[in-house]
Structure formats: C-alpha cells, structure tokens
C-alpha cells in the first residue's frame, strides 16, 4: 500500500507549517552565521506543499523503495529542506541548530548519506536536474509507480547542463518527472534578467517539449494543484514555474538580491520572529 505521511489537505495547517519552517530557517541561519536566506525563506511554501501533501514518503523509513524522490538541484537553499525534513520527522528539530558546523549531518550543501531524506549531494548548479532525469528514466523503464520531483532555481537555467537534461527528459517522454523552478528573479550578482536573461522561460521549456504550468509559488493550494496536474500528463515532463518572492514573509528581506547569500543578524532575526508570530496568529484566526 502506498504510504503518504504526514499528509494534510487542511490549508490552515499547511500555512502554519510553512510559518514554522520559516521560523526554523531564520533560527538556523542566524546560528550558522552564514548561508542563503532569501531563496530558503522564499521556498517555504513549496517545501510545505511537497512534504506535507504531494510526496509519497515515510520519515520513519527514509529508504522505503517506493517513495517519491525529491531531488534538490539548487543545493544552496538546503536550510528550507532541512527544516521541512525535521518538521516531517526525519530527524529531531534540535539538530537544525548544527547547520554548517563541524561534525554536523547538516552540511552547508546537502550530502547524500549524511542525513536521512537527502536523495543527492548537490550544490554545483545543473547537476541535480540530470540526476532527477536519470532517476525518472530508471523508474519509467521499470514501470515504477513512484515519481521524481526536482527543485531547480531560475539562475541555474544559465547552466548548459540544464538544457542537456531538459532535452533528454523529453526524448524519453518522462511523464513521471515534475520539476519546480524557483522563479525568484535573483542571483548572486543581481537580477536574472540583468545578469543573463532567462525569458521567455515558459516558451523555452515549451519549445523543449515540456508541459509548463505557471503558479504563484506562495499559494500552497495552487502548488499542490499544479503537482496533481503534472501527474495527469503522461507523455512529457512537467515544469512548474513557481513565481516566488525571495525572502517572502520577512519584509526587510523581500526582493533584495543582497539577501541571496547572507544570514540575518541577531537583531534582524528577532525582528523576523516578531513578524512571523503576527503571521501565525493571523492564520490561526482565519
């Protein structure tokens, strides 16, 4: 029997989980004193949708053979993945505070084998996308029921390897592959459209044979719906372009490229907790 744990369709519950993940990410980054804030915070809603609704997985049995695979390609946003994994019960939440420290299982970029729930070592952009394609090929050839999900960044699209992988995914009609692009428009040196434009990104993926869906990357319901839609597309892979706001939920971080690669200070973290607490109460009262 397929397992899906811990799944909820309760939107209020999902929003509270996303709120909690954001708080954990702020806490981890402040403690680590380095890491990528904006992308991690901006992906909280997507990771919530995946781990608490979309994915078939079992935190008590991370190696369960029939699990859906989630391949993180832009490894630098791993704090949000670690927070989601801990929230789902893969490991104790206290361990989150060891991020980037000597002896920690929470490496600065994810390492397969160190931490349960991590499918691939990643960091160098473009590589996870190919790994996801490889998994989907193996699964499709053997008629497995599990699916492959991969999270890619928008800046990552500048790597040529991504397009090699995109071509092959169409060649093999990988209907069991759903990619989610974090379209937050920022990269280290500025806005993607200034550094090296990606647009028209929808047309590019369509031209490569993919089914493309655009969603608001902060609307958990819409993210879930897009993932469900991708399951119904058999003859081609799906790219969900999730429009996100870097640092979403923490106003002083939102939209600013400078928050791509730095952690909050103690004072900034305290400010963020206050904002997140207000948000939490708002959701509770909905």
């Amino acid at each position, binding site marked *: 029997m397929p397992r899906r744990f811990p799944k909820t369709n309760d939107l209020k519950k999902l929003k509270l989980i996303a709120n909690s993940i954001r708080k954990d990410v702020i806490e981890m980054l402040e403690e680590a004193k380095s890491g990528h804030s904006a992308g991690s915070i901006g992906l909280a809603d997507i990771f919530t949708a995946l781990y608490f609704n979309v994915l078939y997985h079992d935190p008590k049995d991370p190696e369960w053979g029939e699990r859906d695979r989630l391949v993180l390609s832009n490894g630098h946003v791993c704090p949000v993945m670690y927070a989601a994994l801990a929230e789902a019960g893969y490991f104790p939440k206290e361990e989150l505070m060891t991020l980037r420290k000597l002896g920690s299982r929470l490496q600065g970029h994810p390492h397969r084998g160190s931490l349960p729930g991590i499918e691939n070592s990643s960091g160098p952009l473009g590589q996870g996308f190919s*790994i996801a394609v490889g998994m989907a090929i193996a699964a499709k050839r053997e008629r497995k029921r599990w699916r492959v999900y991969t999270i890619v960044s928008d800046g990552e699209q500048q790597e040529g390897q991504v397009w*090699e992988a995109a071509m092959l995914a169409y060649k093999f009609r990988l209907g069991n592959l759903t990619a989610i692009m974090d379209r937050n428009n920022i990269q280290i040196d500025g806005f993607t459209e200034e550094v090296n434009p990606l647009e028209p990104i929808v047309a590019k993926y369509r031209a490569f044979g993919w089914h493309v869906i655009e969603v608001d990357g902060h609307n958990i319901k819409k993210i879930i719906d897009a993932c469900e839609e991708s399951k119904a597309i058999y003859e081609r892979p799906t790219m969900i372009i999730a429009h996100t706001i870097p640092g979403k939920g923490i106003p002083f971080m939102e939209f600013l490229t400078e928050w791509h690669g730095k952690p909050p200070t103690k004072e900034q973290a305290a400010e963020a907790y206050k904002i997140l607490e207000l948000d939490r109460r708002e959701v509770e009262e909905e």
Partner: protein
Amino acid sequence: MAPIEYNRNPEEKKGTRDGFGKALVEIGEKDPDAWALTADVSESSRTHWFSEKFPSRFVQVGIAEQNMAGVAAGIASCGKRPFISAFGEFSPGRNWEQIRVSICYNNVPVVIHASHTGITVGPDGASHQILEDLALMRALPNMNVVVPCDFEQSKKATWLLYEQNMPGYMRTSREKVPIITTPETPMELGGSNLYKEGRDLAILSHGPVLHQSLLAAEGLEKEGISAAVVDMYSIKPIDEERIKALAKETGLILTAEEHQVSGGLGSAVAEVLSSFRNDAVLRRHGIYNRFCESGSAKELLGKYELDSKGIAEVAKEEVKKNKG
C-alpha cells in the same frame, strides 16, 4: 617474486575498447541491473554490443557528457550499475565536475569508460588526444583508476571496477595492440604485474605503451642492460610495495606512459618514492608539457619516444647518467 608469463610472439591484435565492450555484455548477462550509457559514440566506445542485446538498459544521451554523468548517477542511486562511455577528451575531460560531485561525492557505483585516450588516437590530432585524464581521475576521492594493457586485461578491468561497487575509471585506446596476456593473467585492484625481472632499472608502464616497454627491455638485454618491466595497471590505488621493492632492487625507475609527465603514473610513483628513505632515481617519461599532433599511432609513438626504440634510448640515457 617470479615474473608472470606473457606471450612474446603475439599474433592477434585487438583494441582495449573491444575488451571493455565484450565484458560489458558479459556483465549485462549476469546482472539485470547493469546499464550502459553513451554520448553519441556507441560503436566507437563499443557499447553497441550491449545496446543491441539489452536495449531497455541502454541510454543514448546524445552529445551531452555532463548530463550523461548526472543521469548515470541518478540511475545508480536507484540501485542500478551504470557504465558511461565516451571519448576520454569529453568524459572525463568535459564533465569532471559532474564526476566529482554527482558520482564521487554521491558515492554511487558508476563506472566511467574513456575510450580514444592518449596519442595513439592518432590522426584526429591533439584536441582529441587526452593526456591529462589520469591526473583528473586520480585526484578524486572514492574513485578507482585502472588502465588495461590489452584486450584480455581490459575485460578483466571492466569486471574489476564493476565488482568494487563504487565509482571507477578505466582508460582504453583506439589502437589495436598485441594480446600479450591470457584470461588467467592476474589483475586486482592495487596490484601490478611483473613481466620481466631486471637489475639495472625497472620500467613501469601501462596501456599500449606496456608492450613497447617489454620490447625495449628485450632489446636492452642484448646491450647488456637488465631492465625489469611492470604493468602498473592499477593507477589508484597503486601497488606501493612493488614500487618500494623495485626502488631497493634497481635504484632506478623509469615510468613510460602516453600521458603528461605530470599527474599520471609518473607522479603516482614519485609520491610513493618520496614517502620513505631511499636513494632511487625516478625518470618520468611521457608527454612533456605539450600538445602533440596528427599522425598514425606508430608514427606518434616513435616521434614522442614512446615506442620500444624511444623507451630504450631513454632507459640507456638514465642508466648512463646514474649508473655509469
């Protein structure tokens, strides 16, 4: 230790890439989880025998070596045993970073088969004659590196890397080389084969140059120079005990390889020699910090002194310099 028998009058010649292709089919027959991938060079890298027999376990990725390494890593992480094949210039030449992170850091059992390596690629010229691959692969954690000297050893090398169940790299060549070993000739990870004993110096070699080294040593014998010849097929891990013993016995080691003198077997031997107190001299012979050119394999081995004549000349020069 007594030398291993080898065929002194080999009649049959075959490419080491053929040995890989044949063993790949054998492995495919035995293991339903064995897969093969190639980047638009299935016939020239000899994966076409596998693809004809096991199409459902074959992946043609097109001209995309970076993607090939990653796709193989993904397939391997699903419990499969993929082999990736391309010309050495492109894999590991182009996809080193993918091999480093997607394969080695993930620690998934992908075997990388690089065909068309070294100057024996011949007429294609310098752009295609990779001479730096051993340096690239030897430096990677979790990676084993093996270079077979002929068809039989190539079959064994393929099995050997497969059996390790971890990342592996093997280098083959396009040029047909005499089959001097038999199916019984030993091959093990971290091993080496002494084919000829000698007192004055030891020639350490691998790949197609090994046979040239043997011929050189046979010729040197007639001139009163006694040269040992060893096939150092396992570049990583390397047979340290063999190197230490030869350093003590001969005091003069000559490495001969179709690779840059930096980073390949020569460097691996230098690392061992500098790790203990000894007064042995090492001459790293190979390609000296340059690009080569078009020509037949035979002409190029001659020009760059990696044929039997060239190796014998270098050996004599070193013996004269150090033992004269």
